[in-house]
């Protein structure tokens, strides 16, 4: 048992247990806390896989941004009986059975995946190549050919850059945040 295996076992246990906690806890505040531990576990998994920037972005954006937003939503809406809405037991049983079927199916499928070429080098490209790809500098030397093609058709991969998706997603984020601020602005409450 090497260090990565031990670390993965630890992180996977923490992440899975807190994901189960999100599903099973009824109180929405406790769900938020379990979700916090799940997100931190996933970001540590990214660090274990060697994707440092993605792990840091997960910590900053998810834990520092999205989860705080969710907690604010909980604070603004959870009062009295709304904090613990009970799901009928029959629905929970049906959902649990379907979830168990789904997870076993997915695990069976994932253990049939065979990667065509095992990784040679032990490092993911770092922040520098990520930033260059986002800025539109095309990758001149792809580390490997495309996988999943029939034998004999070894097509070299087209050098790609991600400037257009980056711009689209940034404008999308701006538009969405303006829209959210417009939607959630203070209004006189309608008496029902």
């Amino acid at each position, binding site marked *: 048992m090497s260090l990565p295996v031990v670390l993965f076992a630890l992180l996977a246990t923490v992440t899975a247990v807190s994901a189960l906690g999100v599903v099973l806890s009824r109180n929405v505040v406790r769900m938020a806390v379990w979700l916090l531990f799940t997100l931190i576990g996933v970001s540590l998994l990214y660090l274990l896989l060697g994707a440092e920037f993605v792990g840091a972005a997960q910590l900053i954006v998810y834990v520092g941004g999205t989860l705080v937003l969710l907690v604010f939503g909980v604070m603004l809406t959870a009062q009295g009986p709304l904090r613990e809405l009970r*799901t009928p037991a029959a629905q929970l049983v049906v959902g649990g059975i379907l979830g168990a079927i789904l997870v076993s199916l997915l695990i069976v499928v*994932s253990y049939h995946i065979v*990667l065509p070429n095992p990784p040679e080098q*032990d490092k993911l490209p770092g922040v520098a190549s990520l930033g260059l790809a986002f800025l539109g500098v095309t990758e001149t030397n792809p580390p490997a050919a495309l996988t999943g093609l029939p034998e004999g058709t070894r097509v070299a991969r087209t050098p790609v850059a991600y400037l257009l998706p980056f711009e689209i997603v940034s404008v999308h984020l701006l538009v969405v945040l303006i829209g959210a601020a417009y939607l959630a602005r203070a209004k006189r409450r309608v008496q029902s």
Partner: protein
Amino acid sequence: MTELGLQPFLALSAFLFACGVVCIASKRNAIGVLMGVELVLNAANVNLVAFARYNPAFQLEGQVFTLLVIVLAAAEAAVALAIILNFYNNHATVDVDQADELKG
């Protein structure tokens, strides 16, 4: 890392995905449904980063797509929360079972 392999990450991601789906399907609190969506997106991200690590052809793509998904998840959470707050302002509840005004 090579002795660990891709499959344990895929199994963990499948578990996270199933948890998220059950959360979406069974929670009555709208914010709980939103948390289920976050779990599903995180499961997809774990898959992407694991494939980036174990398939040399997708080393850069996996990380790029993960970052895009993280940004989109933040945007989705903001809009969904605004909608939930509006619903709460109009109906004084966040129970998704009460949102049946369009029911035929």
